[in-house]
C-alpha cells in the first residue's frame, strides 16, 4: 500500500491506497470528491481535470503516490459557503453546461487559464480548453463564460489592488 498525505482544497488529508491507484480514483473513492469524472481513464477527455500545485492535470494520469506533500484543488474547492466562484457563476448565467459531465474538468481548466492569464483572447481560451472534450455544448457558451469570468475577476478588489501596486 502507498501512503499519501496531501492538501486537498486547503485541507490536509491522508490515505493509504494500492500503489496503482490514480489520483482520480483516490479523490472519488477515498475522499468522496466525485466532482472529477472518469470519462476515459487514459488522459484523452479531460473530464478528470484538477489543479495540482497550480497546474491543470488529468488526474487519471497521476498515481496517488505522486501527490504526497502536494496541493490539489478540485471543483469542490472553488465555491465558499457564501458564494459561487465567479467562473461557476458565469458558467451558470451563460447556460454553458448541459449534461454537466465535462463541467468540473472544464471549469478547472478555465480556472488554471485565468490564474495564469487574466485577460485571455478567444484563441487562448480555445487553446486552454482543447484538452477537455464536450459532446453536448459545442464549447461556444463555455468560451463566452470564460470571457465573462475574466472580466469579473479583473474587476475584483484583490485584482485591482494588485494592479495598483504594480
Amino acid at each position: 500500500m502507498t501512503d499519501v498525505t496531501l492538501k486537498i482544497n486547503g485541507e490536509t488529508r491522508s490515505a493509504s491506497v494500492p500503489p496503482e491507484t490514480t489520483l482520480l480514483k483516490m479523490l472519488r473513492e477515498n475522499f468522496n470528491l466525485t466532482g472529477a469524472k472518469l470519462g476515459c481513464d487514459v488522459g484523452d477527455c479531460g473530464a478528470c481535470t484538477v489543479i495540482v500545485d497550480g497546474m491543470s492535470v488529468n488526474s487519471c494520469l497521476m498515481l496517488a503516490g505522486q501527490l504526497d506533500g502536494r496541493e490539489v484543488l478540485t471543483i469542490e474547492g472553488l465555491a465558499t459557503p457564501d458564494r459561487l466562484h465567479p467562473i461557476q457563476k458565469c458558467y451558470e448565467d451563460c447556460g454553458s453546461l448541459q449534461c454537466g459531465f465535462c463541467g468540473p474538468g472544464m471549469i478547472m481548466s478555465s480556472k488554471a487559464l485565468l490564474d495564469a492569464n487574466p485577460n485571455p483572447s478567444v484563441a487562448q481560451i480555445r487553446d486552454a480548453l482543447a484538452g477537455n472534450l464536450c459532446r453536448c455544448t459545442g464549447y461556444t457558451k463555455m468560451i463566452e463564460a470564460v470571457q465573462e469570468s475574466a472580466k469579473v475577476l479583473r474587476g475584483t478588489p484583490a485584482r485591482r489592488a494588485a494592479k495598483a501596486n504594480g
Partner: protein
Amino acid sequence: MKKRGRGIACMWYPIGFTVAANASAAVVKVNEDGTATVLTGTVETGQGSLTVLGQIAAEELGIATDDVHVVSADTDTTPMDTGAIASRTTYVTGNAIRLAAEKAKEILFQVAAPMLGVKPEQLEARDRKIQVKNYPQRCIGIGEVANHAQFVMGQPALGSASYNPHTVSLDPETGQGKPFATYVYATQIAEVDVDDETGEVEVLRIVASHDCGTPINPMLVEGQIEGGISMGIGFALQEEMLFDKNGKQLNPNLTNYIMPTSLDMPEIEVDIVKNFDPTGPFGAKGVGEPTAVPTAAAIMNAIYNAVGARVHSLPATPEKVLAAIKVARAKQLAKPKAKALAKPKAKPAQKRLAAR
C-alpha cells in the same frame, strides 16, 4: 493555398416516433402556497428538458419558472414516459404537462370563482394571481386560492394527463400516411477555408436558422444548436470508426477517434425562425436532433464552392478532399475538348468569394 467557400443546406425533421404510440403522462400538483411540483417520467439527458418542462407548467399556471419544481425519472413515483428520444420531449411531454397543469388550474378556478363573484370560465392565471379576464384588478393571489382549495374546500389542486401525437399508419405498399404530428425545418450556411495543397478544411463560420415552433427557452435552443453543429462538424470532417479485416475496431478510444474540440468550433450565429405550431405546448415543437442534421451538408457544399471538389463519402478527411480536388482538376483539363462538341453554355456565375 487557402480557398474560401460557402455552402447552404436545409432540412426537415419530424417530432416523435414514426406512427407508433409514444405517449407521455404527467402530474402537476399545485402546492398550498401557489408553487407547483411536476412529476414526469422523462429523463434529463443534458438538453435542459426539465427546465423547459418547468417553464411550460409555470406558463400554464401563471407562475414563475422558479416556482416550479420538476421531479423526474423514477418508475415508482413518476408516470410513464416514452423517453428522451426522437426530439419528442418538449412537444409530447410538454403537452402532457400543460394539460395536467390545466386540470390543476381548473380546480383553482372552481374554488376562486365564488371568492371573486364570477364564473370559472371568466378567470385566467397570470403573474402569480387568479384574476378575471379583462378585469385583472379583481384577483386573488394563487397561493391564497391554492390554500383555500386544499384546506377549506378539501380539493387539492392537482391534475394528471397524458398526450400522444396524432398519426396515421403508413400503407405497407406505398408508405403513404401521416407518420408524425409535426416537423421542424432549418437551414445552415457554412463558410470554410480549404487548403488546396493539404486538403485540410477549416470551418470559419456557421449561420443556423432553426425552427422549433415557440422557443420555450431560447438560451437552451442555442445550446442545442451549438452542440448539434459540433456533432455535425465531427461527422463531416473527422469522426470514423475503423474496422480491420476481421471486424475488430481499430480506434475504440478517444486518442484515435477524432472528434471536435474547442479548437475546431467556428463562429456560430443562431437565428431562431419565428413560428408557432398550434398542436404544440404554447406553439413549441422540438429541436434536439435537427441541429445535427444539415451541418455536414452545408460544409460539403462549402468545400465544393471553395475548390470545386465534390466529396461523396464522409468524413471528408484531407486525403479525400485532396483526391476530390485532383478529380476536379482532371475534369477541368478535359473540358475544352468536350466544349467543342456540346452546345455552348453560359459560363457559371463566379462562385468564389473574394479573399477577405
